[in-house]
């Protein structure tokens, strides 16, 4: 029973970055801009969250720094993919590499290597029926509901989806295509930044250049799984997060090494991601203009 509660606590932690990043990406993809740089976005935010927290001694200011870093990365990606009409996927790869280099060299320059955060710089957790829960977990639930409401129940959401499906008529109807897409990318990057800050300040309490360990791509899988619906992304996030947690949890079960080698346990999240995607019912329908820059004729 205690082990199960531990598994649940872990799963609720592991689902947060995968879900938050996916919700942000859903909003951005609904507007027609894909960002495969979630991995780099998260690690950069995680790094600057730690920089902020260490500089001021306050985890909440660190959180704000992480969000700010996420938004700056979003500005770069938005500028390239919306205003410069560049290749969104290539820009995303650039951001991933930038994250690796920025965090890898920044860590060495500032602290001489990877870092362990003291308890005073960690985001405090709240009590929950099954153990402890992060305040960011609750924010994630609210953001999922808010993003769903924004996309499907407001005029702004209708415009965002119009711009993603077919920007030319939207433009004729007086919608500012570039501005809306740019805003959607920033919103997505903001949520990705929150996911990154969660990684370092709240979950792992450490910073390395490979901190997200492909979870940016698992978040992309979650976007596909949830068929670009923020509420379904909660379910997808829980499933992917559960397997992520399972791999930690199994490795702590005594005597498990005799049955399954630990290297195979570490494969669980990645294998599960492929299997879940394969088993997902029906295919996701992506916005028509996804990935295509808009040129006014």
């Amino acid at each position, binding site marked *: 029973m205690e082990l199960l509660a531990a598994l649940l606590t872990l799963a609720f932690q592991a689902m947060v970055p995968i879900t938050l990043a996916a919700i942000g990406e859903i909003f951005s993809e609904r507007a027609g801009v894909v960002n*495969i740089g979630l991995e*780099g976005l998260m690690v950069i935010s995680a790094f600057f969250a730690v920089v902020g927290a260490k500089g001021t001694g306050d985890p909440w200011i660190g959180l704000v720094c992480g969000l700010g870093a996420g938004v700056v990365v979003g500005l*770069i990606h938005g500028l*390239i*993919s919306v205003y*410069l*009409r*560049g*290749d*969104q*996927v*290539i*820009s995303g*790869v*650039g*951001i*991933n*590499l*930038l*994250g*690796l*280099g*920025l*965090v*890898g*060299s*920044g860590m*060495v*320059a*500032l602290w001489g290597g990877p870092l362990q955060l003291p308890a005073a710089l960690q985001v405090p957790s709240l009590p929950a029926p099954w153990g402890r829960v992060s305040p960011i977990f609750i924010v994630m639930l609210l953001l999922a509901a808010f993003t769903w409401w924004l996309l499907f129940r407001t005029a702004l959401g209708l415009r965002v989806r119009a711009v993603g499906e077919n920007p030319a008529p939207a433009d004729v109807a007086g919608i500012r295509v570039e501005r809306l897409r740019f805003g959607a990318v920033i919103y997505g990057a903001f949520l990705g930044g929150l996911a990154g800050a969660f990684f370092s300040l709240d979950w792992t309490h450490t910073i390395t*250049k490979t901190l997200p*360990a*492909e979870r940016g*791509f698992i978040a*992309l*899988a979650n976007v*596909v799984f949830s068929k670009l619906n923020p509420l379904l992304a909660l379910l997808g996030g829980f499933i992917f997060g559960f397997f992520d947690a399972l791999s930690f949890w199994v490795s702590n079960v005594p005597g498990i090494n005799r049955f399954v*080698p630990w*290297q*195979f346990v*570490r*494969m669980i999240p*990645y*294998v599960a*991601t*492929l299997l879940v*995607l*394969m088993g997902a019912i029906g*295919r996701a329908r992506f916005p028509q203009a996804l990935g295509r820059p808009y040129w006014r004729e």
Partner: protein
Amino acid sequence: MLLAFIPLRTILLTIASRGKPVLEVIAALLIGLLLGAALMAGWGYDPWKAYLALLEGSFGNLYSLASTLSKATPLILTGLTFAIGLRAGLFNIGAQGQMVLGALVAVAASTLRLPTGLHLVVALALAMFAGAAWSLPASWLKGRRGISEVISTIMLNSIAVWLARYLLLHFLNDPQRGGWISIMAGPSARFPTLVPGSELTYSIFASLAFALAAYWLLWHMVPGFELRCSGLNAAAARYAGIEPQRSINLAFILGGLAAGLTGATQVLGRFPYSLDNGLTILGTLGFDGIAVALVGRNHPLGIIVAAVFFGALSAGGGLMGFRARVPLDVTYIVQGVIILAVAAPEIWRILRGLFPTLGCLRRGRERWNY
């Protein structure tokens, strides 16, 4: 005096007329190096000292030149993996995992008892086969289940890493060397050294041969033509009777062969002729190939040039780290910025608007393209 005989004006005009993509790429490289310098200064390092060391460490003498070429060898191959995928309309970022398995199989094959020469050929063939085999799940998932290769190849990369760590530890481990590294490939399975005292081996010819073969296949043979057609316009290609799954498979398999060969060149062509359990010997060569392919404009011949550039960055990085104490990860920043600059060709049109003197580039092109 001699300078007067170099037709500088003609060369410049030719570049201006035919070489707009080349100029764009060169500008992207410069932007990457400049922003890398800015960031080094920001972290408190001396960028001037760093780049001088980088230049000396990559082209300063015969040894560093050989080192640059040896670093370029794997980059040509992983660059091809990505480029061939992109030519078929695929975003194949699975070179890393395919390379890991190629290296693993190369080490395993080195335990076979075969005569020198044949042993190397067999090891290379098996490594390439392993790389291609590891690319097939992504191809199948893409074609049959519509799962984006961006996600599937990344997952396969991670799975490959843990699989390789398991197999290395349990089947290819060398307990006499502390258990953290695999057995050493015997001399009969190694690439012979090309420049004595350096890491440059005959593996560079394997790399170049693969690049030329890929060029021939893509531009002078029917399957390659079909592959490029599918990449340019999948719907039109299907209408013309080109089976999409076949092109997808071909692109993944060719990419896998290149990536598998990359792994083999790293364990059979370099000291310590083995693979460590942390896979640090392979580094991130698979991902580095993305920048190489983009800078090389996804063309095998361009990729060779681009690989030498990035090889120099990597070869000189050691001396740069030593002299200017710059962390090696700075080269990822340079790479990332270069990719971002390549991603947005529109930036050049805006720059031309800001600096009218650059406008001659386009005028030149119009004049020469009649």
